[in-house]
Every structure is written in structure tokens, then in C-alpha cells.
């Protein structure tokens, strides 16, 4: 079985085709990176998987049975999909702890929440900042808090949209280490990223998108050797 199958997915905004029959399959336990130049359709792909955008045609299967294109955002989340947005999306009026509490999702029983929140605070290193409103956190702290929020529900499929954008080198290395720790046999992780060093450090395989189509799929080393990929993206 596969964790996620994207099958001939086409998305159009008016006359602009953002994704043109894109297909990919992610195995359980795999960390897959999706790379490509701006406008390649990377974020649109995540928008469809998380239910924010509906496709013109094609399917997105979670596991073997759930077609995500027919579900609402909340239903998709309940099925075990979590997404970290590109712009750090935390709730500024709530404290770090309250953000994580909401991140646990509506299904987790109240008695299990304190332990889950405590372990997340430890994981993202924000324990001392637990009672600070998220709006007052630094950019890097917000990125980490949002990662903690999406992890708190123990997702089966984790979508990360540029998790190291705007982070320092140290923070990037810490995030790479965190993602490697998150790898589990029953969890698939899909990462969108521009930082090639970061992708090399975390991804099992990469998918290269260009103008809404799949240009390459395979190892990062293979991508670096592929002339077409070099031309549109890496070579610049």
C-alpha cells in the first residue's frame, strides 16, 4: 500500500493551468521533497491535498480508500493529514500552550492533552515560552510552534510548505534534525522547499515540478545529474 497517491491531478484557475496531470506516489515512512521554480505548482499541490483548492480532474488518495478531493478541510485533517503553511500560521491571540492545545485536534480526549502538549513543548524547545502569546514570538519560534501544532495530532501524512524559509543556518540544521526524528514507518512526509542543501539532508526522493508538470522523480543525486532539471532550476 502507498501512503499518498496523486493521480493525474489537474488544477486550473480560469485559463491558467496550475497543475497539469501531475501524478506521484509517496510510501509510508518516506520523506518526499517537491522542488521546482516559483510558479511550478508546488503550493497548489499542497492546497489540493489539504482540501483548500478543488481540482478540475484527478484524484488524491490517502491510504487506499479515502479520496481527499471529495472531502472538506476539517474531514481531511481528521483523516490524519496536517499541513504547515509557508507563512507561519499560528494564532497570535493565543499563547504557545493554547496553540498546541488546538493543534491536538478535536478528537483527542481532554485527559491526554496535557501530556501531549508537554511533549510537543519539549520537542520544539518552547517550554519556557509556553505562556507567551504566539503573536509575540520571533519568526523562527513561530515556524517551530506551527510545526508543533501540526505534530500534536500525530499525523499520518505531514505536509510542510517551506519549513525553513527565513530561518538561520543553525535553525535550518535544527529543523532538518527534527524532521529526521519525525520519520516513522506509519508516517509519510511531503516537503516543499527551495533550500537544496536542506532537501538533500532530509529527503528520500524528490519530485521536480515545472510549470505544472512533473519533470523528474527519483533521488536528489539523480536530479542534479538530469539535464532538464539543471536547465529549469538547479542550473540557475
Amino acid at each position, binding site marked *: 500500500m502507498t501512503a499518498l497517491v496523486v493521480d493525474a491531478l489537474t488544477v486550473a484557475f480560469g485559463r491558467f493551468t496550475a497543475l497539469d496531470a501531475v501524478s506521484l506516489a509517496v510510501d509510508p515512512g518516506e520523506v518526499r521533497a517537491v522542488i521546482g521554480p516559483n510558479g511550478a505548482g508546488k503550493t497548489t499541490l499542497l492546497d489540493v491535498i489539504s482540501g483548500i483548492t478543488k481540482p478540475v480532474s484527478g484524484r488524491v488518495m490517502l491510504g487506499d480508500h479515502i479520496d481527499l478531493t471529495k472531502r*472538506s478541510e476539517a474531514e*481531511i485533517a481528521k483523516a490524519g493529514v496536517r499541513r504547515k503553511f509557508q507563512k507561519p500560521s499560528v494564532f497570535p491571540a493565543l499563547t504557545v500552550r*493554547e496553540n498546541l492545545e*488546538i493543534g491536538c*485536534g478535536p478528537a483527542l480526549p481532554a485527559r491526554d492533552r496535557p501530556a501531549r502538549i508537554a511533549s510537543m513543548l519539549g520537542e520544539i524547545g518552547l517550554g519556557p515560552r509556553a505562556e507567551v502569546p504566539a503573536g509575540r514570538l520571533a519568526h523562527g519560534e513561530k515556524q517551530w510552534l506551527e510545526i508543533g501544532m501540526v505534530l500534536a495530532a500525530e499525523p499520518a501524512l505531514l505536509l510542510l510548505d517551506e519549513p525553513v524559509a527565513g530561518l538561520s543556518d543553525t535553525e535550518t540544521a535544527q529543523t532538518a534534525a527534527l524532521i529526521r526524528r519525525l520519520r516513522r514507518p506509519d508516517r509519510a512526509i511531503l516537503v516543499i522547499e527551495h533550500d537544496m542543501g536542506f532537501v538533500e539532508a532530509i529527503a528520500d526522493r524528490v519530485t521536480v515540478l515545472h510549470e505544472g508538470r512533473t519533470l523528474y522523480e527519483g533521488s536528489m543525486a539523480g536530479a542534479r545529474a538530469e539535464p532538464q532539471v539543471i536547465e529549469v532550476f538547479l542550473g540557475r
Partner: protein
Amino acid sequence: MSGAVQTALAGPAGPARRAVRDPLVAGLVGLCLAAAAGLLVAPPAPYLVNALGQLAAFAILAVSLDLVWGYLGILSLGHGLFFAIGGYVCAMHLLAHGAAVTGVLPDFVQFMGWKSLPAYWAGLDHAPYAFVLALALAGLVAFVFGLASFRSRVNGVYFSIISQALVYVAMLLMYRNDTGLGGNNGMTGFPLLFGWPMGSPGVVTGLAVAALLTLAAILASTRLLVGSAIGRRMLACRDDETRLRTLGYSTTRLKLGIWCLSAMIAALAGILYVPQVGIINPRVLAPDLSIEIAVWVAIGGLGRLGGAVIGAILVNGLKFWLSAAMPEAWPFILSGLVLLVVLVLPNGLLDLVGWRPRPTWLRSSR
């Protein structure tokens, strides 16, 4: 790691403390109770008692709007509709009750040439039924309108405009004499309240005390609500609804629930208001009244329940005084207040005492 666990397990979490420690709300609740006791022990002149009772009804209305606007980000410019539903049903009860006791039909029914009250007035002379009907009707209208809007993801300014259109349509409906609710003259001349003659000092005091106690109860219970887990989801929904949805929460249900609750609180304010002014007519459905409610909240302090109460009392207190002293100046004073708040005090008058930092959600437009 162990330090983090300790932090996480130590003591009550922030929100629990915050829910209890709101000196402003606590002070206002205490003030309402003290004022109610004062009215019972040593009532001042009836017109003052009456004014106080009306202010309390407006304050309840302001709280109902702040609940959806300040805490959920839904600006209703049609809350006068729910206030009017409460007011109209209350007026119907008062007239039906009067007719049942005295045997004299209300004036407007006689003007229409009808021999009896229309069939849908049946049972309205019973106060409990009228009370439940008013709240249920407001809740139902809010539910239908909210469901249609929130399901199709009508948000922000579009929702505000539609809510304004809704109150306008209701006003046109009520201006028709054939609607059977008094047309443009509305309904007035309420003879009795629970068998007591309307306008007697006891009834005036009783109504004001009831309004003050209701305000205290509404203020305390809505404060508990916004300090609870539901309140945190409301703030989360206000600041980033997509984020909340993609964490597995059905925001439609949350918004619909709070929206209906807010509508019923507004109806409660209308129920308390109408017997105190002794009249209801389609003017309460005028769009400018609904906008004014938003002005009270904005002036007092959006997103603070105590601020809504202060705004409603301040603006209406000024209005009571100035619209008698220099009526032609009132619109200019109100507009000036709005400009002052928008330009200088984005969080309303509570900015003056530094109650809380500038909310980031007002500035970021995501």
C-alpha cells in the same frame, strides 16, 4: 525536556486564570448588581430609573455584537433585526395580554378594521410562550441566514453587507400595514405588564432592575464562554479560519453556534427594551441603528466585553443628554467620536488605560 514537562504540568493554564481575572467585567457586574439593589432600596426619579434600564438593554445588545465581531471576526451590520424580533414579539405579548384582560382590541387592529387579533397571535398573551417564541424566532432566523452564509463561506465585508440588506428587507416588510404588526406606526399603548399598569413606578423600577440583572448575567456568562476552550477556538477562527479548519475543526458549526447565541442575546435586549420605551416601530430595523450598535462596540473597545458595555452606555448616555439639549449637533458628535476612535484609539476607549496591546489581527489582512 523535563523542564518543559514541569512547565506544562505546573498550575492552572493561562486561560483559566484569565477567565477569572477580568477586573473590568467583574467591576461592571458588581456595578449592575449594586445599581439594581440601589433602585430597589431608594429609587430616584422614574425617568432616571427608566433611562438606566434602557441603557442596560443597549449594553446587552452591544455585548451580543461584540461576541461575534470582537471574538469571531464576524461584523454584523444587521443586529437590529434580532433586537427587533425580541421587541416585536414582546410588544405582541403586551398587546395580547392587555386585550385578554381588558377585552379592548389594540388600536392598530381597530384601524385595520379587523374584528379580532390575527390567528398567529394565538397564545401570545401567555408570557412564557411569548418569551420562548421571541428567542426561538431570533435563533431560527439567525440559523437560516448563518447556515446559508457560513456554508458558502461568505465572510468579511460581504457578510456585513448581506446582514445590512437583511435588516433593510425586514424594515420594508414591517412598514407594510398588511404585515399585521402595526405598519409604520408600529405598536404602542401597552396597557399592562403581568397584570400591573404600565408606567406605574413599581413596573418602571422592576423593568430597570430586570434589565440590570440580565446585563450582569449575560456579561458574566459570555465572559466565561470567551475564556473557555470554545472562546479560544473563536479567537483562532477570527485570526486564521483556514488554519483552524486544516487542524480538523469545523468552523461552520462554531460560527453558526455563536452567531445564533448572539442573535438570541440581541433578542433578549429587545424584549427588555420595548416595555421600557413603550413603543416599537420599524425604525429599529433602520440600517443606521444597526450600524450604530457597531459604533458603540468600536468606541468602547472591540474584543473586550466590558468595552462593549462602556461604549453602549457612554454613547447612549451622551445621546439621551445631547439629543435633548442640542439635537441638531448629535450626528456630528457621533461622527466625530467615530473618527477619533478610528484615527487615535484603534481599540476604542480601552486604549486610554492600556488594557491590552494592539491586536495584530487588525493589521494583518491574511
